[in-house]
């Protein structure tokens, strides 16, 4: 029985080293082939008609002109769009046209004749009163906790009402605030899509997916095959932030059209379809009242929130409100607003960024009304911190404050120096996330000639998965990373979980470390006889199998591998999600701080400095690990300042569903970002924990608080566009 472990920091040769990613040259020179880049012989190109209306009934569809369009080979009306069907959001695909070329497919779509009966719609997520009047709301849960328990004879609701009011009366400081965050879309740069070949009862699908191992059965189920008939391939994926877990109905349709035409079918969503239907993050808005003592310790929280996940209502889960800093007494109530917008999909740390922006803003406003330093108010409330250990947050706050020079730059809200029309401000927020390792299996082959190769049905979202796998194998086998070959990206390799929930680095570290430790144990057994020692006395280091502490008694790696005989050593090792393990763990904390400048005449905000301090247990590759954090912060800057889905109340349309109007942060927008990996022995010893999501949580709240600190007034709803900043300033003057 092999005991799994990580080598100590000082003993690690490869792990913890900032190696370049192994597929970097492929990615930078255009050699890496994404799904969109797969061109198969005789393939058809498919385009789809999206519904122009937010809510309608399909009266009729005439495909004859489309079918006659030169180059068009096949037209399919999707099952959910058959005449008589109700369509509940703009952009929903109705008909797919497969043709010999992009141009012909597009023209075929244009030639479709669809008659619609327009129905009433509701697309405004923020206007709660309007939604209620229109009958577009539904309860979305809630919870109340008080330190004092109701008595046996008490009506629970009445007791809570009275208790909360009593606590507010006792409060030294009471803050009432309104906060919100609009829906944003995943906006993957490679849109959702696939290139599918039906071949006599089997399917090969190049799919842009975060879930290589888990989408074969999706194709199989909908096509009445079994999973063994399907191979899903994804060597490179152009962006996946929680929206690419399934073949999607358009992938299944591509397979059906391939079956019907006998040709491969490539169907990638258009840019506006990608934004409209292929994933968005729920909007959330909240009215908060909180009460605090002399020191700013919050002891009661009362909130009503609402938001939308689409036609099903939903919104941001109330389960993470208030966020991280959870006082002993709270009540939270949630309402879902049913909108004629496509349903939300998981989005990088689902619910957390919104919850953070909807509640840690209130803590900052508490500091504002008290005239206190926000840092002190956050520090005071760490006694109520959940997720990570309070001392981790506290240490990270100290590190962050030093990096951003908080003390020197701090001024009370709205009291900073003015340079022309420009004011500056500081803000902070903190977050937590699980990041447990996903299920993963690795097949490791060690050849008698010393060759090493691994196979794992995982994927690389940009995490650097191949590099992480290679580092773990190389470390364990005492080799260099270029001596191991890592194979990922097809469903025919051993199963590995979807990349969602910050689970990938943990997953592949588990499976690859286990496989390599299992394999090296076999090699130690064989080498022990040669070296006349106990297998337990051996180590793999520097390309050798050697007796620990005695490098003179060693076998070169190649030589050791010859002991395997004629056949390669093949080991498959697995990790099951949730099993306690010395290699991985869950639960991290992070602290982020923002320094911004605001032009009070135009409402334009510019990032000056952003500091992210992040715990993620043991770091396999600090370079790719930091890249994740930089990226998460930049995504947060975009959500704080630029991007949002703009729904038009007049037409029900998502009006800015093109990149020219759906604004993302550009290279010149980000200011200076400083990332600190928080990896003291206490946290490193917990093993690997995912970090893809946690650093994406705090930026919006931290920037919101910095803007408030600069202006002395709150801009309530993200993104903080010039329009909203100017409106907030106007309201403050009024």
């Amino acid at each position: 029985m092999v005991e799994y472990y990580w080598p100590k920091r000082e003993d690690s040769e490869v792990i913890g080293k900032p190696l370049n990613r192994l597929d970097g040259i492929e990615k930078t020179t255009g050699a890496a082939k994404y799904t969109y880049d797969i061109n198969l012989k005789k393939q058809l190109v498919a385009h789809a008609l999206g519904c122009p209306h937010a809510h309608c009934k399909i009266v009729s569809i005439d495909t004859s002109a489309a079918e006659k369009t030169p180059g068009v080979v096949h037209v399919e009306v999707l099952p959910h769009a058959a005449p008589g069907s109700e369509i509940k959001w703009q952009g929903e695909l109705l008909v797919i046209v497969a043709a010999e070329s992009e141009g012909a497919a597009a023209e075929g779509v244009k030639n479709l004749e669809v008659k619609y009966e327009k129905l009433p719609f509701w697309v405004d997520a923020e206007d709660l009163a309007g939604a209620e009047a229109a009958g577009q709301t539904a309860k979305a849960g809630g919870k109340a906790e008080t330190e004092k328990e109701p008595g046996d004879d008490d009506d629970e609701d009445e007791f809570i009402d009275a208790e909360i009011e009593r606590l507010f009366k006792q409060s030294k400081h009471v803050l009432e605030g309104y906060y919100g965050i609009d829906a944003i879309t995943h906006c993957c740069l490679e849109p959702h899509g696939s290139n599918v070949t039906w071949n006599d009862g089997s399917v090969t699908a190049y799919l842009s997916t975060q879930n290589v191992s888990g989408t074969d059965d999706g194709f199989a189920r909908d096509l009445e095959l079994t999973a063994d008939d399907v191979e899903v391939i994804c060597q490179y994926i152009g962006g996946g932030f929680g929206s690419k877990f399934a073949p999607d109905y358009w992938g299944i349709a591509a397979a059906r059209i391939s079956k019907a035409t006998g040709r491969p079918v490539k169907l990638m969503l258009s840019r506006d379809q990608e934004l409209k239907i292929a994933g968005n993050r729920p909007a959330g808005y909240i009215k908060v009242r909180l009460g605090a003592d002399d020191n700013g310790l919050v002891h009661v929280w009362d909130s009503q929130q609402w938001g939308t996940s689409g036609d099903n209502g939903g919104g941001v889960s109330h389960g993470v409100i208030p966020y991280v800093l959870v006082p002993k007494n709270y009540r939270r109530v949630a309402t879902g607003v049913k909108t004629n917008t496509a349903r939300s999909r998981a989005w990088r740390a689902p619910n957390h960024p919104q919850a953070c922006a909807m509640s840690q803003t209130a803590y900052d406003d508490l500091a504002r009304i008290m005239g206190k330093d926000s840092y002190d108010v956050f520090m005071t409330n760490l006694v109520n911190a959940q997720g990570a250990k309070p001392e981790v947050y506290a240490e990270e706050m100290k590190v962050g404050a030093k990096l951003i020079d908080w003390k020197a730059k701090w001024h009370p809200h709205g009291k900073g120096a003015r340079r022309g029309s420009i004011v500056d401000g500081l803000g902070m927020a903190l977050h937590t996330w699980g990041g447990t390792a996903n299920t993963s299996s690795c097949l490791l082959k060690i050849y008698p000639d010393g060759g090493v190769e691994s196979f794992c049905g995982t994927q690389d979202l940009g995490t650097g998965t191949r590099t992480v796998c290679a580092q773990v194998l190389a470390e364990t086998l005492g080799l260099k990373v270029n001596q191991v070959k890592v194979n990922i990206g097809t469903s025919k390799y051993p199963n590995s979980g979807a990349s969602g929930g910050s689970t990938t680095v943990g997953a592949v570290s588990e499976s690859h470390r286990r496989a390599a430790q299992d394999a090296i144990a076999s090699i130690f057994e064989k080498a022990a006889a040669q070296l006349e020692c106990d297998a337990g006395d051996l180590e793999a280091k520097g390309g050798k199998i050697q007796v620990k502490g005695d490098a003179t008694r060693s076998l070169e790696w190649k030589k050791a591998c010859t002991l395997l005989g004629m056949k390669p050593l093949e080991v498959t090792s697995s990790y099951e999600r949730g099993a306690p393990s010395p290699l991985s763990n869950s639960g991290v904390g992070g602290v982020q701080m923002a320094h911004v400048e605001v032009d009070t005449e135009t409402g334009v905000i510019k990032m000056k400095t952003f500091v992210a301090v992040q715990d993620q247990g043991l770091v396999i590759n600090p370079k790719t690990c930091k890249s994740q954090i930089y990226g998460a912060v930049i995504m947060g800057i975009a959500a704080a300042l630029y991007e949002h889905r703009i729904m038009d109340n007049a037409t029900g349309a998502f009006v800015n569903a093109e990149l020219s109007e759906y604004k993302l942060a550009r290279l010149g927008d980000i200011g200076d970002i400083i990332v600190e990996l928080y990896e003291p022995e206490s946290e490193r010893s917990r093993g690997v924990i995912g970090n893809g999501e946690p650093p994406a949580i705090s930026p919006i709240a931290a920037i919101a608080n910095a803007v408030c600190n600069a202006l002395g007034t709150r801009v309530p709803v993200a993104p903080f566009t010039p329009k909203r900043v100017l409106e907030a300033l106007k309201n403050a003057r009024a």
Partner: protein
Amino acid sequence: MKNFEYAAPRTESEAVALLSDQPGHTEILAGGTDLVGLMKKMVVQPERVVYIGGVPSMKGVAPTADGGVRIGAGTTLDEVLDSPYVQAYPGITQAIRGINSMQLQCQGTFGGDICQRARCWFFRNGHGLLADGGRIAADGAGELHAIFGNRGSARFVNGSRIAPALIALGAEARVIGPAEGEEHLIPLDAFFRTPRHERERETVLEPNQLLTHVVLPPASGHSGAYEVRHGEGPDYPLAASAASLDIRGGVVRDARVVLGQVAPIPWVSQAAADAIRGLAVSEATAEAAGDAAVADATPLSQNEYKVQLAKVAVKRAILLAAGLETGGF
């Protein structure tokens, strides 16, 4: 994209001869940064595309006999930016720099910027130039729409980045056609128009006329341009202004102030010019000119904030023209 006939004339007269007199039948292609996207979305569907990138006489920047400058409509924006003859017109170079995309500057042309189609997401999403008689923009998501000149059906904004500066500088457009040898010099402020119905376009160009050059008078006095940009991307500004000032003895003798991104045409503000004339430029007088510029603004339901932005853009363009600091980003 619908397929089309294609022609690449080598001379201006060949180009004009290839144009149809029917609106929408032919489109003139230069850099393609605006037209190609619209053709892909089938918002415009020409039967013929006439590519003017191969007309040598429409390229380049040259001094004119009277000390001004003539800029070919087919000259790319980066070439204009780098031209020594244009450096005397900082309003133009500031506006081109503001585009903030090397690719757009290298690909897009001077004439293309001036002739670009309306900035309006309803138009670009297929609702027509006037988008339901202007009702959609008025009632719905009109936050980027016009705050001036929006009493008719047109509520879009003109997106040209350089037109405000050109108009402030007193530029003229050289337009040829429809007849062979026919040539017009049109003051650039008269080149734009607010369409009244869907068959009218955003300029006075007939379908078979061609903008070949822009002619600038000699650079005299001071010019400046300021754009309120949300971020550093090549996105369109939320409001913009250009000012051209004749300052003598520390006092503004004459002024031209033009706003961009706020009306269906580049919006000449006589009120702002009047407000600054006879005064020395200072933070206070520039601000007063900004106030004057927006006194008669007519914002829609969602774009009241653009009034403030227009005001600040005017103020800062005047300050920049006078060589002063704006006090903001």
